[in-house]
């Protein structure tokens, strides 16, 4: 058509004309800027694990409102009533001590944000698919979290209060790593959100702030499981040593919790046997007496 050459060149045409009109220096600068902008959505500015602060067992680190001490990493067949979703799999347990150092309550679900699944551990997701070792913290499966003192699930951590917690993932039954890498991911305080609609909360950054290699305590035999009220059943594997007392207390007091049943995530409460009901904070009771009650 005769007037076609006078038609609007479009955004791309304008950009091409503008770029062509630039000198060499201008082209270099604009090209660099375009490359930076294009890379931004793909994580060009994300912190890399190499920048992480070294993390060691029993070292105290601060993440968001928490003081966190990673105590040990344990591989186990069961943790009390908590069993892997696939019976052929195992449980990977990170035992940690957490304290809320702020003046306001913190939600315990944030522990799942700041302790991503360990790397090189053979962790599988809830559909038993292996998790790549190069998965970003935010893409790794979330753990179930239990208060070791009573085998219940934590919901809130108030200022100054310290809990010893078990963070539990499903682990491939064939995986037997001697060491795994434990990362901690950061939280960013949002004083005032966009337009003031959501203020004053901790936002997961999914950026690794601390990282360290930990030995993995391998599974042990399941001796003593399911007898009496001692509560030395499944939990023994993950909580041996000084957690024994905690499990024993769970043994006598969490029977009611086991009544609630099967739980979620990693299959908490499977030891119920009778399979009565569902519930979040069931299961971790992990004890013979609890199971006996619920079975009845």
């Amino acid at each position, binding site marked *: 058509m005769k007037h076609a050459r006078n038609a609007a060149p479009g955004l791309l045409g304008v950009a091409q004309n503008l770029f062509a009109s630039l000198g060499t220096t201008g082209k270099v600068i604009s090209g660099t800027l375009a490359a930076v902008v294009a890379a931004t959505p793909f994580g060009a500015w994300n912190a890399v694990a190499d920048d992480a602060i070294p993390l060691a067992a029993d070292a105290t680190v601060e993440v968001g409102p928490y003081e966190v001490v990673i105590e040990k990493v344990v591989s186990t067949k069961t943790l009390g009533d908590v069993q892997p979703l696939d019976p052929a799999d195992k449980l990977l347990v990170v035992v940690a001590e957490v304290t809320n150092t702020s003046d306001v309550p913190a939600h315990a679900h944030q522990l799942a944000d700041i302790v991503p699944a360990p790397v090189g551990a053979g962790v599988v997701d809830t559909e038993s698919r292996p998790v790549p070792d190069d998965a970003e913290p935010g893409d790794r499966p979330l753990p179930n979290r239990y208060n070791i003192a009573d085998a219940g699930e934590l919901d809130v951590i*108030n200022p100054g*209060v310290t809990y010893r917690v078990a963070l539990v993932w499903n682990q491939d039954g064939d995986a037997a790593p001697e060491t795994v890498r434990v990362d901690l991911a950061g939280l960013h305080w949002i004083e005032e959100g966009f337009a003031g609609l959501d203020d004053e909360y901790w936002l997961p950054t999914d950026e690794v702030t601390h990282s360290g290699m930990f030995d993995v305590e391998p599974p042990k035999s399941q001796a003593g499981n399911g007898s009496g009220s001692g509560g030395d059943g499944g939990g023994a594997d993950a909580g041996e040593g000084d957690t024994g007392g905690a499990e024993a207390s769970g043994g006598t007091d969490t029977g009611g919790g086991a009544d609630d049943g099967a739980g979620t995530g990693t299959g908490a409460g499977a030891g119920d046997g009778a399979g009565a009901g569902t519930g979040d904070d069931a299961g971790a009771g992990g004890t013979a007496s609890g199971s006996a009650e619920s079975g009845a």
Partner: protein
Amino acid sequence: MSRRGFSWRTMLFAPIAIGAATWFVTQVPQDTSVDRPFEIEGAVGETVRLDYADLAVTDVRVAQRIDGEGGAQAGGVFVVVDAVWEAADRTLSIGGAELVDAQERTHAATSRSGCATATTAVPAYGQRITYCFDVVPDALDGAQVRLGRGGDGEDGAFQRRDAVAVVDLGLDRASLEEASADETPLWIDAPAPVVEAGPGGEENA
């Protein structure tokens, strides 16, 4: 019809007026005068009358262990608060429950062991529930509970310009010693209606 543009006076005073208005708005103490809830103070055993409900904190106990829907061991110490809610004229949700200590630290209620963090209040009869707060021992001195229909949230947005009951729990270090001496888990009753209309009724339905 005049087609004059802006006069020099307009050009001069308009920015000044806008600047002055902006300054004035920034001086309004929004965080305190405007946003703050209306706090109605009370004590254990008293009925606190809010415009949407009546509340009575009927009992306060301290324990290391509680038991109800599964046992729970305190990371610090449990402050167990029994309360009765009765709505004024319509059914409503009661979502706010926090404990504030003398250091102005706030503590959230826990749902462990069957403790309540929220409830539904209805008119005509009271609804008895039990709040549990797992706090460090030094939070007992001067502890108060703030109970209201608006959820606490991190920034208190759901309680702005609404009535909130503030009840002094009357706790101190002696309360902690009593709790430490008794290792029997404190039983947490499930929420239940109260036969006698109004807070303070003793009998359950």
